[in-house]
């Protein structure tokens, strides 16, 4: 380590030591802000996993008209077979469908057993190949097929999928806006802490400039102090979010199993963890630069 690095690291620790309370206050504030953001990320990650798992189970059901002609039926089957994004095609006759239905629900309603006719149509259950754009493929194909002659309707739970998609978009936007607000707030907090740190060492910093210190020499310890504040807040928040995650898994595993259907409640993904730490570094640098630059430029223009 050269003398410049040694001096600025030493100077950083001496600043922190002499402004211990302010430093801890700033770390605590950043920690709270990052934790709130982390909880939203935790929610987002798990809902996203849940949505992806649902996505894998979605299948397209094509109901046929009762009076569909054989030629139309063949034409529809040809359309299925010519689409390479369709993985499997299962035909369920109206009799088989009625049998399945009665098997499932006759014990719950006497109305079903007393019904003298079969109200269900013939149908095809189409399973699509796994792909990132699987849902889009289902959507596109259902749009194409629903107007074909002989097709009564198509069904793949579009309404609730669309609602859930909108909710995820809203959540993503909310986290983004909320994150920007917290980000700005944290920059201001670090900036003010560094400002107080500068003013508590004003005589020394003034003297440094008078004795010929470069701006980089003066700024480096202040930037490092800001980075320490940001990163410490970020790391502590990751620990606290991990504890929240463990708490939820420990106490609500049963309920989660029924909601998530065998999918584990996940901690934050690695890219999110790295992003939180990087954000800590960025807000530290921005916050401290803001005060350091302001102080140094004001000194010169005096």
């Amino acid at each position, binding site marked *: 380590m050269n003398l410049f690095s040694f001096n600025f690291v030493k100077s950083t620790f001496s600043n922190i030591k002499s402004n211990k309370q302010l430093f801890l206050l700033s770390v605590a504030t950043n920690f709270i802000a990052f934790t709130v953001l982390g909880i939203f990320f935790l929610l987002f990650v798990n809902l996203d996993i849940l949505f992806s798992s649902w996505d894998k189970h979605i299948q397209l059901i094509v109901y046929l008209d009762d009076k569909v002609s054989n030629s139309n039926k063949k034409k529809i089957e040809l359309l299925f077979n010519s689409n390479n994004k369709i993985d499997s095609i299962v035909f369920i006759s109206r009799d088989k469908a009625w049998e399945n239905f009665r098997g499932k629900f006759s014990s719950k309603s006497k109305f079903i057993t007393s019904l003298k006719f079969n109200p269900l149509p013939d149908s095809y259950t189409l399973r699509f190949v796994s792909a990132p754009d699987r849902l889009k493929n289902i959507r596109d194909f259902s749009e194409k097929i629903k107007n074909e002659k002989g097709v009564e309707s198509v069904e793949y739970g579009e309404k609730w999928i669309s609602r859930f998609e909108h909710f995820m978009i809203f959540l993503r936007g909310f986290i983004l806006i909320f994150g920007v607000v917290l980000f700005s707030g944290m920059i201001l907090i670090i900036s003010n802490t560094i400002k107080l740190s500068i003013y508590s060492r004003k005589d020394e910093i003034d*003297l440094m*400039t008078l004795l010929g210190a470069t701006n980089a020499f003066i700024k480096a310890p202040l930037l490092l102090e800001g980075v320490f504040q940001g990163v410490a807040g970020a790391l502590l928040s990751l620990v606290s979010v991990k504890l929240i995650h463990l708490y939820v898994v420990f106490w609500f595993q049963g309920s989660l199993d029924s909601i998530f259907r065998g999918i584990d409640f996940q901690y934050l993904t690695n890219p999110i963890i790295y992003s939180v730490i990087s954000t800590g570094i960025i807000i530290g640098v921005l916050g401290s630069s803001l005060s350091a630059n302001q102080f140094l430029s004001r000194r010169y223009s005096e």
Partner: protein
Amino acid sequence: MIKVFNLYKSYGGIAPVLFDISFDIQDGEFVFLTGQSGAGKTTLFKVLFGWEKFDRGQILVGGINVGKLNEKNLYQLRRKVGFVFQDYKLLVKKTVFENVAFAQQIVGANMKTVRTKTWNALKNVGLVKKKDSYPSQLSGGEQQRVSIARAIVNDPELILADEPTGNLDSEISKEILALFEKINQQGKTIIIATHSAEILRKKECRHLLLKRGKLLQS
């Protein structure tokens, strides 16, 4: 060493504090900058040191055009000039040794150089025995000597001393003046701002006389 041409400086554009000042000082000269309180001595020093901006004119210090400096390269001038402050500007939480070493640490000198040069500077001003004392444990004269040691430790070409004996009694002032003469004999250019008639009587040298911001004698 210093060339000043038609220098003007005012605060808030009212009456100028420095009015059409021109002079030059050669390498190795010993000069007194004199004048009553408020004549503009400290302002002239601050302008020469890049501590304050000026309105008009040209200043060259050791080949550096002071008017062209900005906050990023001002340090180049500051490293060429050792400044002795009237109020010493010592860091109270640092020892005598640390105060002097501080001036070298901030210019990036290595540990060995810092130790050797600080030791030599303290020897030069006769404060080796007080190296572990804190400023509050020193007399005014001793504090001023620490300030001088700090000003010379980086081996600057020019020393500006602003009223270095202003707070000291006659005997100590004599010692301080002798110290500056010794430094001057080592080849440094010295400018001392003072309004003390006693100091001025003690040394035969060039005087720059300021009166209400105008240079009457150069």
